[in-house]
């Protein structure tokens, strides 16, 4: 019996509803964007085709490069902290019983708060005069000021993001861990495996699928982050925490009109697409030590 998946073109029937749903929501708007990106919309009646001019302007923008670098740094920092922390959290959460339910609910709370409220809370939270965190840090002797110091601002935004989104990684990993049949742990016990060996040879491989989703999701979402840092620091001090999304909005609202904004959007999208594509392939190849299902997962 082969472990390779059988070819079945009729499987397309199962996929069509999904394609329709997403295409309806995606392709039409996207077409509009592409349309705008190659035009100069001087006024609703006067549109001039300008080809790739907006793209060239956008790509040559020095401030854009800075924002992009800032964004990359932020996203990498986010991944570096949230992924291991999420895994560790998932491993520490109880597997069953009332404690499991309680922990699940508490962990999930931060995900449910609207993002502008998240930013607002941390805004007060971090103030040294009226906020618990700020006062505590000041009390410990730190010269903490997230509005004045770029480093403090960065760290605050990062910690806020970690607080906000690590539960996503943890929940995915937790569900993934629960999906591992008991027999694997029993077999490992019988084989005399150490706790570390259990993690390395059973848990981590079986989490591969779920971790890939977590990494791609967190990368994407952190790359598009807008509301929370905007509310917390407004992009400051200066433009220390002005990430890519905020830069786009600033330009679109302030200086650009629809044409360049659309072009920027496409470039933005392509950057994320390229990075995710690279990440995805790298993760597929790095983990070709497959889990039970990996040889069944579609490879790019």
């Amino acid at each position, binding site marked *: *019996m082969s472990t390779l998946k059988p070819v079945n073109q009729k499987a397309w029937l199962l996929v069509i509803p999904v394609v329709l749903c997403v295409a309806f929501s995606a392709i039409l708007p996207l077409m509009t964007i592409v349309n705008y990106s190659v035009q100069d919309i001087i006024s609703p009646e006067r549109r001039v085709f300008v080809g790739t001019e907006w793209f060239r302007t956008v790509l040559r923008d020095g401030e854009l490069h800075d924002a992009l670098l800032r964004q990359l740094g932020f996203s990498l920092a986010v991944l570096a902290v949230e992924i291991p922390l999420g895994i560790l959290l998932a491993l520490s959460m109880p597997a069953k019983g009332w404690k499991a339910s309680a922990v699940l609910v508490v962990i999930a709370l931060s995900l449910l708060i609207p993002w502008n409220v998240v930013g607002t809370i941390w805004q007060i939270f971090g103030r040294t005069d009226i906020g618990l965190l700020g006062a505590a840090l000041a009390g410990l002797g730190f010269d903490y000021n997230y509005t004045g110091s770029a480093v403090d601002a960065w760290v605050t935004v990062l910690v806020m993001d970690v607080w906000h989104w690590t539960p996503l990684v943890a929940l995915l990993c937790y569900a993934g861990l629960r999906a591992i049949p008991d*027999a694997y742990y029993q077999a490992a016990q*019988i084989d*005399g495996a150490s706790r570390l060996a259990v993690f390395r*040879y059973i848990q981590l*491989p079986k989490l591969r699928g779920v971790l890939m989703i977590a990494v791609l999701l967190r990368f994407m979402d952190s790359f598009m982050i807008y509301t929370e840092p905007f509310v917390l620091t407004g992009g400051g001090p200066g433009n220390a925490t002005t990430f890519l999304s905020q830069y786009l909005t600033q330009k679109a609202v302030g200086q650009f009109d629809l044409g360049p904004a659309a072009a920027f959007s496409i470039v933005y999208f392509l950057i994320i697409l390229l990075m995710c594509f690279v990440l995805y392939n790298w993760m597929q190849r790095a983990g070709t*030590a*497959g*889990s039970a299902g990996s040889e069944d997962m579609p490879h790019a």
Partner: protein
Amino acid sequence: MARIDLDLSHSYRPDPQSDEDYALLPLKFTFEDGGAYALLGPSGCGKTTLLNCISGLLRPSHGTIAFDGRDVTAATPQARNIAQVFQFPVIYDTMTVGENLAFPLRNRGVAPAQVRQRVGRVAEMLDLSASLDRRASGLAADAKQKISLGRGLVRQDVSAILFDEPLTVIDPHLKWQLRRKLKEIHHEFRLTLIYVTHDQTEALTFAEQVLVMSRGKAVQVGSADALFERPAHTFVGNFIGSPGMNFLDAQWRDGAIEIAGRRYMPELAAPAAVALGAAGGFKVGVRPEYLRLAAGNDPQALPARVERAQDIGTYWLVTATVQDAGGAPALVRARLGNEAAGLAPGQTVWLSVFNRHTCYYVNEELVA
């Protein structure tokens, strides 16, 4: 290789009151060193619970287990040195076949040269030598189960190998191959093997002794022959055999067996006759293989109405109804030879029921 002595019962409830609260009713049994045993029974009968008690994955709420006289009730599976093969293949996906087999030895700190030797030997035994360097995750289910088995065999001092319905996900045409391989291994290594299954064919072909279980109770233990010939309980009579044993309600009257007004006098030992006489009603059990067509004037034969006669190939399966002491007519199945070829539905035939294979049951338990 070890002798395993059980004297236990298990309940998942903290304070069991009645029989229903027990997953395993009190059982005292010894698995001899080197024997091949099967735990046979329908779903939920407690066979997996029993297996897990033996392996140490579950601690029985009452009683003890001893390996070679040593009390292991509190010991972990590792300490008991058992190996277990699960219902679906459990392998370490990131490792090669060879690394999988070597894993239990490496964890115990065995020297690399010895590891290589053992792995090689076991791989050869299981026809896995060619795949030693391949990723274990890419193999088919039966190969993966062999790897699971191999991880147990590779440990020289393994006390017993336990199987929990291991052929469930194997292709039907590969099942017999694996069963044969298991028998070979038993022959070669003389390990204590305990095999859980709900499939009587698997149990009866694999094991020397079969423990038939129902609702937490070990109903009968014996060889395939014993279970077939003298089932100790109507449940065993019904469960073993394809189709199972036929049962007819009967009563004892004036020194003879009475079924639906007709009287029969089979040969019975005196104590059996006394027991049947003392009981209110009892059951006559006879296997389809031991029913015979008789002549119409045979006083020892029962009248039966044919419902259906099927040509199975190697025999004819005749289904008939018989009036017995119970209210409705009882369904009776017989495996007959070509003499059954001409039978038509509705026809009346005479079945010879009483012979030396016939069993008698009072309150579901074998009396004679």
